[in-house]
């Protein structure tokens, strides 16, 4: 049993991990797939998110620590704090 295992691979992090969100406060990264919001429509991600919590911080693309509970979830980015749903 290992804690905080980072995946062996996965989308590379941006150099400026921890940078603020994009112009106008819009998120830079898809919180489901971790790819750039600008790179695609992410419609499938948006649909999937109805039944999934976010996994990637939309501001800095860090993988968040996510806890799913019977009637909600919380997701923590070490840089940007906690969000709940």
């Amino acid at each position: 049993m290992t804690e905080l295992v980072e995946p062996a691979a996965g989308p590379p992090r941006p150099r400026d991990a921890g940078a603020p969100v994009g112009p106008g406060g819009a998120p830079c990264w898809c919180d489901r797939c971790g790819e750039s919001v600008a790179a695609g429509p992410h419609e499938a991600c948006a649909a999937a998110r109805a039944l999934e919590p976010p996994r990637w911080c939309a501001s800095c693309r860090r993988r968040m620590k996510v806890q799913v509970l019977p009637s909600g979830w919380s997701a923590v980015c070490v840089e940007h704090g906690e969000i709940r749903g």
Partner: protein
Amino acid sequence: MPEILDQARTQVLENGVGLDEAGVLAVLNLPDEHVPAALQLAHEVRMRWCGPEVEVEGIVSLKTGGCPEDCHFCSQSGLFTSPVRSVWLDIPALVEAAKQTAATGATEFCIVAAVRGPDARLMKQLREGVDAIRAEVDIQVAASLGMLTQEQVDELVEMGVHRYNHNLETCRSYFPNVVTTHSWEERWETLTMVRASGMEVCCGGILGLGETVEQRAEFAAQLAALDPHEVPLNFLNPRPGTPLADRPVVEGRDALRAIAAFRLAMPRTILRYAGGRELTLGDLGTRDGLLGGINAVIVGNYLTTLGRPATDDLKLLDDLKMPVKALSATL
């Protein structure tokens, strides 16, 4: 009426004897136009041998992610590039989750950990969690911690865990295609120890892993031979980063065929809707399954994915005039 349904009416509905593998396969192969009749018969079987009550359960992950095993459907394996990070739930949050679950009218609360088997730290955390829940919440506690030793089985009994979940996941012949880090037989061994201990056995699996229809029938027959108290039926929800990420979801019609067939194989078991039903069946299919052999639900969220709001399921049960099983009926 297809011959297999005539046979099932006598054998299963009247005599309470489940269909064998060949019978299950015949149900799984029924043409579309006969699926409603199969569901109707499965519903009659459920009402006759289990009654109208529906057992409601909530589940929570005590330890998420970072599992050393390689079950190809699982986003919690540490061996895949899944975005799920390892995280532990603390005791106050666990008790809060049990309270939320009890507030829905659920009688079962299952504490799950993503591990090959529990170590001393996890057993200690579980013991503290079970004690804290029992002090504050009126609910039956179940656990799912992977493969156990006899000592751990004894410890769970002593803690007051009344039911243990350990899924076989798929049939014996297909298992090596899905898991390579442990065997189907190792899982069976844990189930045998759990059964002998007096804890209730909860054992099911996931449909849509790439198994054939014949292997689905094999799985139903193997579960029937185990004769579990409860069978949770999951439908694959393909998870990003896992080897099965690109598999198609099970077609709703095939899922309903499977529900009817599994009920006809196991007339007396608690047949529970578990993960993936939202994706595979949607609202309408969920209703069809409850009228086709299902007599238990997991309400609210799952371990790493979300479910329908519990209130939607409770309203559906109310519409169907299916009472939620009361705690007094489970003791």
